[in-house]
């Protein structure tokens, strides 16, 4: 989190409740999802969310390499979240750093919670997320892209997984943090929802929140996830239905 009172902290919230980019407290950034964006992958999706650009691809279920990783009674889910060197302000050295490895793990576990892995013993379902341009909320954008890619690949699941980060900015609980809000705000809470059950399969938090603030944040996050869910479904319906041509777009 940024330091309060630092010289160049931007104004995160105006007196009339507008955020740094003019959004209301409970408003998502513009979200556009294109299912089936890639040719080589079994399933894929491209997400443009605010200033994030994230690509996801799914391969599988397929044979496991190396073989000793395979499980006798189910598929394993191998998830790799990676950021391109040019995706962030300060060039990032290529390769998985510890942050990427942790994100890969929590996203992979979110999917393992909803994929019917017993359907495909001794196989691997490989989920790859590449962040091409980052502006806060990349793990949520990546998870959303990968979820659409999994459906595009025909992988059986309990549900799609909408995700969003809620935060606390200038004392207020807000939906879908952008970069400055993430850097200078007081808390960040990414989450992913299984709409069918109403349960969360990804939940992380960092910062300071009271119990009441947390409770409010959870509710706001679930509402935000419901909105993201509609955009995800639209993207898949566009790809697979007759007559629609525009990929899923959110009303801003």
């Amino acid at each position, binding site marked *: 989190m940024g330091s309060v009172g630092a010289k160049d902290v931007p104004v995160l919230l105006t007196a009339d409740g507008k955020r740094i980019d003019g959004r209301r407290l409970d408003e998502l950034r513009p979200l556009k999802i294109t299912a089936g*964006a890639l040719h080589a992958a079994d399933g894929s999706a491209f997400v443009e969310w605010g200033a994030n650009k994230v690509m996801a691809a799914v391969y599988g279920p397929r044979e496991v390499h190396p073989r000793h990783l395979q499980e*006798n009674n189910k598929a394993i889910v191998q998830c790799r979240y990676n950021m391109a060197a040019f995706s962030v302000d300060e060039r990032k050295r290529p390769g998985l750093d510890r942050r990427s490895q942790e994100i890969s793990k929590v996203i992979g576990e979110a999917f393992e919670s909803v994929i019917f892995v017993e359907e495909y013993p001794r196989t691997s379902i490989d989920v790859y997320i590449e962040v091409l341009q980052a502006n806060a909320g990349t793990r949520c954008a990546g998870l959303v892209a990968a979820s659409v890619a999994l*459906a595009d690949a025909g992988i*059986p699941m309990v549900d799609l997984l909408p995700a969003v980060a809620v935060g606390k900015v200038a004392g207020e609980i807000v939906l879908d943090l952008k970069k400055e809000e993430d850097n200078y705000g007081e808390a960040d809470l990414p989450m992913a929802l299984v709409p069918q059950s109403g349960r969360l399969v990804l939940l992380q938090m960092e910062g300071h929140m009271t119990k009441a603030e947390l409770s409010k944040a959870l509710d706001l996050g679930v509402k935000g996830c419901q909105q993201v869910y509609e955009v995800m479904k639209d993207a898949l319906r566009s790809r697979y*239905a007759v007559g629609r041509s525009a*990929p899923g777009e959110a009303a801003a």
Partner: protein
Amino acid sequence: MGSGHRTGHRGRGRGGGPPNASRERVLVLPGEEIPADGLKPGPGTYRVNGRVYASVLGLLNHTPPTVRIIPLSGRYIPHPHDVVIGTVTDVQGTFWLLDIGAPRWAPLHMTGTPWKIDFGETAQYLKVGNSVVVAIETIENTGRIGVTMLGEGLGKLEGGSLVEISPARIPRVIGRGGSMIGTITRLTGARVVVGQNGRIWIDGSPEAILRVTEVLRMIEEEGQRPGLTERVQGYLQSTAGPRPAREPRSDAPRPGDPTGPEPLPGPGEDDETIGPSPGPDF
């Protein structure tokens, strides 16, 4: 998986049911609730607390007594009696491993062939890179896929060309009662073996192979637009040349007849189809 509430997720089916199924074209996504109407939840669905949901992206299909989802995408999921085209990826002492485009490779045992092979001689009969037509025999709980090359229309493939399309499109390639594949072979003189796994072998003159390949591309990319059958016939008739097809080789499997059981009337027959559009730009 999670909380254990789900009961009986069914593996994804493909077809083979009786043809008196409902013909509605309802696209469902994973997690969408399906009205079960007293039907049994079948492939592509799962049940929680008495309610039925889709688990895969596909077409809702009521084939009493079951409600199922016909997947519109994804790798080939094998079913017993499917005839598929595989590529040999590994050779062992008593068997070969075949890549059939399924989640797992399929072992073909030497006793599953018409040849009398001694231990260690397998490489003399099939090498890595060879293509074969085999039938699925068993799917075990471990995921092991048993295949055989013993049977009519099965065997090693030589010459010709191979095309790969989405397995979800195969019913369209075959057509109701074999009408589409019959039209294709009749108007081109090509010999065609259609694998349920989306792989299709074509043999004939270079022109015939080219025309069949183009028709398959049309089915894969334009199958969701109405009037496909007319467009295919129009294309084949307008590109018919004076030259007759080359004589088929005698050692390869015979062509033409739909392989496998009657396809479930899934993604459209002669009218509009729901299916993936060609990959959009992003």
